[in-house]
């Protein structure tokens, strides 16, 4: 099982479409210094650093070297991790593994991206096989849109269902001072927004952002000393899938189902809908916020629309999802997954300000990437 590990500090930048004021390394420094402040630590207390962003999106390779000053990595071990959309959560998992191994006591995990520095959809498109799939593959939006066309056909989900999810996340973001996109919207606003790729409309889809997030993991003995209320890592599970888009099972997400089944088993969770107090989920498009609920064992296949229509996942519902506004409000891709972990940690630590879910003791975070890769982490107020 490894050592028990707690999150003792989180830092985020103010995320935006463009951060003209900061180069990538300065954006990293902003998040890292805020995380150190949150944990009341200095860089001298950090034993190792994990960093991640999307390969080549800023046309810089060897980013771990390039960002040393902002990371505080001088003379420290640095481990670069990059796993597409899941980068942020994999960075978190990697930070956790470092500490759980017993080899490092306090580890800093950093995710970042300056999406504004290039054409994001073009860059994302290069994940598809250039010979066989790149041409019909339309960035992040194409496959997600296609997937929902299948789900609507199979189970009667509607564009209104996804519009409801979009409105939920966007309105939640109004409580989050760090969020990129903070605008009040109604379901009608979403349905009337321009069509990007049937059935996905402009307000259904996440933005691309400049931003960074830093999370500090500490081994049990240190966490107890340094932090009044750490967010303990109960489990971290990762599952990956095929590389050809046509190979994947699209009616449901096998990686999310298997990862969550395994995680619930390890964490002793038998009724996720009841037992989680809050969830920060990697939902890049509102359509995913409908379809993927099935794969988290909240309901049977096709059961998601009913839960959505009942308001199950609203702030005042049974299981609030994305009080931060989620990915639909903020998406600096290399950081996005780590923001889920950071926000969930703040919920457990009682530091989520206006977006705090009262009495949150158990939180679920997920990451998602390209070919249905899934990272999943469960955090709790009690020791695992």
């Amino acid at each position, binding site marked *: 099982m490894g050592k028990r590990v707690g999150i003792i500090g989180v830092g985020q930048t103010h995320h935006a479409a463009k951060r003209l004021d900061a180069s990538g390394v300065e954006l990293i420094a902003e998040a890292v210094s805020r995380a150190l402040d949150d944990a009341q630590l200095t860089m001298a207390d950090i034993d190792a650093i994990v960093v991640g962003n999307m390969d080549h999106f800023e046309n810089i390779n060897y980013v771990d070297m390039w960002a040393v000053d902002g990371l505080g990595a001088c003379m420290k071990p640095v481990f670069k991790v990059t796993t597409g959309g899941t980068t942020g959560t994999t960075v978190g998992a990697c930070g956790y593994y470092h500490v759980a191994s017993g080899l490092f006591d306090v580890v800093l995990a950093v995710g970042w991206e300056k999406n504004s520095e290039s054409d994001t959809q073009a860059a994302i498109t290069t994940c598809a096989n250039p010979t066989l799939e790149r041409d*019909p593959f339309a960035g992040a939006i194409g496959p997600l849109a296609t997937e929902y066309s299948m789900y609507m056909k199979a189970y009667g989900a509607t564009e209104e269902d996804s519009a409801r999810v979009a409105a939920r996340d966007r309105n939640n973001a109004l409580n989050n001072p760090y969020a990129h996109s903070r605008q009040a919207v109604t379901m009608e606003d979403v349905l009337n927004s321009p069509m*990007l790729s049937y059935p996905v409309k402009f307000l259904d889809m996440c933005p691309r952002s400049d931003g960074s997030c830093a999370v500090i993991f500490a081994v049990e003995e240190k966490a107890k000393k340094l932090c009044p209320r750490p967010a303990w890592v109960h489990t971290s599970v990762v599952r990956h899938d095929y590389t050809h888009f046509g190979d994947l099972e699209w009616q449901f997400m096998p990686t999310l189902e298997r990862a969550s089944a395994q995680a619930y088993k390890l964490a002793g969770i038998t009724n996720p809908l009841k037992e989680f107090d809050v969830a920060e989920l990697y939902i890049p498009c509102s359509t995913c916020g409908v379809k993927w609920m099935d794969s988290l064992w909240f309901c049977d296949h096709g059961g998601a629309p009913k839960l959505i229509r009942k308001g199950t996942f609203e702030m005042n519902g049974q299981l609030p999802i994305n009080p931060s506004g989620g990915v639909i409000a903020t998406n600096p891709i290399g950081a996005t997954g780590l923001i889920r972990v950071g926000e969930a940690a703040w919920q457990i630590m009682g530091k989520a300000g206006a977006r705090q879910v009262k009495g949150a003791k158990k939180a679920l975070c997920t990451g998602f990437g390209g070919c249905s890769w899934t990272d999943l982490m469960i955090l709790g107020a009690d020791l695992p």
Partner: protein
Amino acid sequence: MGLYEDKRKRTHTPEGYELLTQESGHLEYDFHWHLGYYWSKFLAELRDNQRFMAVKCPECGTVYMPPRANCGKCYVEMNDWVEVGPEGSLEGFTIVRFPYIDPNNGEMKQVPFTSIWVTLDGASTRMMHFCNEYDEKDLDVGMRMRAVWSEERTGSIHDVKYFEVIREKPAKKAAAKKPAKKAAKKAAAKKPAKRPAKKAAKK
């Protein structure tokens, strides 16, 4: 947590220097990808024989379109070739309307284009390609599709120009829907793959 400075709207440094952006200029980045035995054969068959060659896993029986060397699930090399198609079922589609830079040539992608996932008859997996229709009202998951070949074929997936919907009767919408409904019903009746039971959840 404290209140941190929000610098999102800044356009100048505190001393008044304008915040600059450096343009890379038009980067040209050429690559040469080696296609290996399987994709070379696959593309040659498209070009020369206008047919879709898939491979079948000797262990799990999955018929892969497009073909590839290894079955990822079983981790075995595959050598059983199987012809599939040329017709198939539309599994999913989207009509892309937002333009973005095509990383293959640096130009803006021509929109709208319709991206489809089609299961060629005999294949287990879906092939990504294009359809020549751009109105979601005329397309439905479950429709039957057939490949339309390019006259000039070079050994590329574009040797198939696009897939067209097979409509037995022409134009009139009500009539055109009939074959689609039947196929759609058939596709809907085909049970989606079973989720692993939570208890017996495979690792």
